[in-house]
């Protein structure tokens, strides 16, 4: 079924799966389109044009009149073209290495630690992945997390609001940041990298100075007496004890965000618009895809993810520290998304991959901690992972061009 893509240009000549050069004999005119396309395409309604000669312009030496790829090989090829594959392989390797070194990783406690740290990364990573697929960056997500939780904390602690209205207000504030980011990017055509870097600096400075001015210190705490705290703690801070591991509710949020993100990306018009905005912006505009609206919506989405991250930490820590350098820095989310198979150029990527990337990140970090190595090695390892992911993505992208998928 992959046959017709193969070999029409020399570039596709070096596909990984073997293509027998004896097959082609340089066909310029092939009869029987179903043979040419092979596979499931043969039973489509075009069968009412039997035996019509289809002329191809394949270079004979790359001819590859692929008749039928064996099913097994096709599955392999399809799998090889999945953008999330490098992350999955990396995850299995990292798990193997660290579990062999210290089996504590595979106990309930170890898993809870890993998953907990992966959950926060994953929530942000999924949102950033969607944005990357649309060809944009967002560096402000981490600081939106801190700033929005500060807003919540100040509204509860200093202004005496109850918890839920305060959360709503900080969500609105986060969305406002997203709208500003999005509108600036869309209207000025400036690189989103720089625009969100500016928002990042503004928010970081404002959050720290503002907290000092309003609360008198960099820390706002002691919120658990506010009305509504109990219900908020149930939604954002519940835990579940399994063995010696304490699993947090952020795990469920992560799973939910990943599932929703994947569904939206592959099964809705919005998702199609996201792909097209990143992969072929001009074509998308020519065809009437609402590129601008989609972009602004995605910036709102990352801002919302930032708010969710901020709220999860706020409830967990029962307070917030304004000097915390962006919880997890925004670059980490981008690293996670890229490890998960997103192309920096936009146009393709994977939500599941971003989640796997978050898991790989967490396994490596906690694995190094559990193994008792110097924590500073983690950054080096992360750099290596990122580099490998970038190289692998290039490969996957090349394969994508010839492999069916939907």
């Amino acid at each position, binding site marked *: 079924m992959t046959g017709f893509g193969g070999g029409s240009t020399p570039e596709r000549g070096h596909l990984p799966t073997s293509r027998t050069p004896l097959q082609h004999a340089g066909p310029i005119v092939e009869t029987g389109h179903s043979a040419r396309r092979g596979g499931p395409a043969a039973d*489509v309604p075009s069968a009412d044009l039997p035996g019509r000669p289809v002329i191809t312009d394949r270079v004979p030496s790359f001819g590859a009149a692929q008749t039928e790829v064996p099913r097994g090989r096709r599955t392999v090829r399809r799998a090889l073209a999945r953008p999330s594959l490098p992350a999955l392989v990396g995850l299995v390797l990292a798990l193997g290495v660290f579990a062999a070194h210290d089996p504590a990783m595979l106990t309930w406690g170890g898993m809870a630690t890993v998953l907990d740290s992966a959950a926060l990364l994953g929530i942000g990573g999924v949102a950033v992945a969607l944005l990357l697929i649309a060809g944009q960056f967002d560096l402000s997500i981490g600081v939106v997390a801190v700033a929005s939780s500060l807003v919540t904390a100040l509204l509860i602690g200093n202004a005496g609001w109850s918890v839920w209205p305060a959360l709503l207000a900080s969500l609105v504030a986060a969305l406002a940041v997203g709208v500003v980011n999005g509108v600036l990017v869309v209207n000025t055509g400036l690189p989103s990298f720089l625009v969100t870097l500016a928002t990042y600096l503004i928010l970081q400075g404002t959050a720290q100075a503002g907290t000092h001015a309003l609360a008198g210190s960099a820390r706002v705490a002691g919120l658990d007496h506010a009305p509504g705290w109990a219900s908020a703690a149930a939604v954002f801070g519940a835990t579940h004890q399994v063995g010696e591991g304490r699993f947090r509710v952020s795990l469920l949020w992560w799973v939910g965000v990943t599932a929703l993100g994947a569904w939206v990306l592959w*099964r809705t018009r919005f998702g*199609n618009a996201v792909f097209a905005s990143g992969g072929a912006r001009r074509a998308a505009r*020519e065809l009437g895809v609402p590129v601008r609206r989609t972009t602004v919506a995605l910036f709102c989405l990352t801002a919302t993810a930032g708010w969710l991250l901020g709220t999860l930490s706020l409830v967990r820590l029962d307070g917030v520290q304004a000097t915390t350098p962006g919880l997890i820095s925004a670059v980490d989310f981008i690293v996670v998304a890229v490890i998960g198979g997103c192309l920096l150029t936009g146009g393709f990527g994977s939500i599941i991959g971003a989640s796997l990337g978050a898991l790989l990140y967490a396994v490596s970090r906690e694995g190094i901690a559990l193994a008792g190595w110097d924590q500073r090695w983690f950054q080096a390892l992360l750099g290596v992972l990122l580099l490998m992911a970038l190289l692998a993505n290039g490969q996957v992208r090349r394969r994508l061009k010839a492999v069916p998928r939907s």
Partner: protein
Amino acid sequence: MSTVLPPEGTAARPPLLELRRLTVRYGNVDALSRLNATFAAGEITCVLGENGSGKSTLVSVLSGLQRHDDGQLLLAGEPVRFRSPRQARTAGIATVWQDLAVAPLLSVWRNFFLGAEPTLGAWPLRRLDLDTAREVTVRSMARVGVPGVDPDAPASALQAGERQSLAIARALHFGARALVLDEPTTPMTMARQTLFGQAVLAARAQGLAIVLVTNNPRYAHLIGDRFLLLAGGQVAGNLTRDDVDADMLTALMAGGEELSTLTATLTALHPELGER
């Protein structure tokens, strides 16, 4: 000024597309100067000319990318002035660009329906109707001469000719009345031209008015019904298939001077040509 001639055949109904003294200026330069032409439904009009003769400007105007400064553009007898490519498409003029407006990493069916995807269900659960989309894509591609396409293959796996077919099939499916085709400037292989020609002829059979901008006079003569020759932003000749043979068209394409002498000769032979 008042001698705008209604072309033949207006008695029944106006031609689908008509240009009346259409002028486009870039600064002080007239890219198109008082152009009169008609493009009838069910006909393939090939626009031929050297580089800089105004071909691409004509495409820009018809597709809504560029507004004309003077004169009129009539769509089915109604004067129109498009502000955006989207408006032109809504009015029923589909353009197949040289770059083809294809997102390479998206699957064929996603490309086919880009911007107008069929959906199922109500809002929070509204989702793409995958089966319909795939089926319609395969059927539409077969209609323009590319049978058995795999709708899930990425568009980059299509050959260049097939990508054009995809764009044409899309135009046909979404009810275009006129099709403007800007042929790639890179030489096409025979096979690609065959596919392309198949798609164009399929569109003609559907009764679309087709404006084909091409550099290849032999190919134009093969599939065209009428030939609009441009030179220096003006009509240098408006010929039908009966007027010229392929060699003559090639000669006409060859150079501007030759073109004008030949046009003069032809005008002498066919007096009605002079009025265009």
